[in-house]
């Protein structure tokens, strides 16, 4: 069962890693990705909106896809919502497996699909001027497309 959390609070990467690997001796590889709020172009804050009823369901599907495609012993997705300032972590993805290729590829897959298949929207609040909604990027669609099967 993947561990899926959507929360305003920060997350504890070390505790999440320990949770995936604790008291197991069949895990040889643990890959993680942390997405962090950058201060591009005078950004003061980033506000993350989501579709509460749908978010956990969408993230669970993405994680289940990863567990079907790679022999993972476990995976975790934690996505924050609300107002985040530069330097703050936004998202954490963990994938554990016996071998490194599975863990690393699953981690990249989880991020690529999360970027294009989970109902989150970012609004940037610049230090000066009006807030603006972040536009989806073609690179993210291209990154997600490489995992398409059939």
């Amino acid at each position, binding site marked *: 069962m993947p561990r899926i959390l959507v929360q305003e609070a920060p997350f504890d990467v070390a505790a999440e890693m320990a949770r995936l690997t604790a008291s197991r001796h069949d895990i040889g590889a643990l890959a993680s990705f942390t997405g962090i709020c950058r201060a591009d172009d005078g950004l003061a804050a980033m506000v993350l909106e*989501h579709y509460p*009823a*749908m978010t956990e*369901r*969408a993230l669970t599907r993405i994680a289940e896809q990863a567990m079907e495609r790679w022999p993972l012993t476990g995976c975790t997705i934690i*996505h924050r919502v609300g107002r985040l300032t530069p330097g703050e972590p936004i*998202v954490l993805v963990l994938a554990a497996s016996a071998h490194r290729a599975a863990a690393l590829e699953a981690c990249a897959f989880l991020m690529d699909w999360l970027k294009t298949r989970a109902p989150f929207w970012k609004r940037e609040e610049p230090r000066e001027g009006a807030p603006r909604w972040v536009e989806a990027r073609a690179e993210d669609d291209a990154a997600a497309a490489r995992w398409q099967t059939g």
Partner: protein
Amino acid sequence: MKVLYFAWLRERLGVAEEEITPPEGVATVRDLIAHMAARSPAHAEAFAAGKGVRCAVNLDFATPDDPVRPGDEVAFFPPVTGG
């Protein structure tokens, strides 16, 4: 039918949620978008082709050909930008 809006759609329309009863001919997401666009000038602008509005029906992402039925929860939103 419950219709939800997120991100700039919610802001432009000034509402997060509407309860609507589409006419009988509205059978797909594509039909529903055409129906929604006719509700007001603000709707027309928000749902204009080229805006790239995306849809979920009953909490799953939906394509223009997917069916919609009375009682469904339908959400409209821009392309997602999480992660």
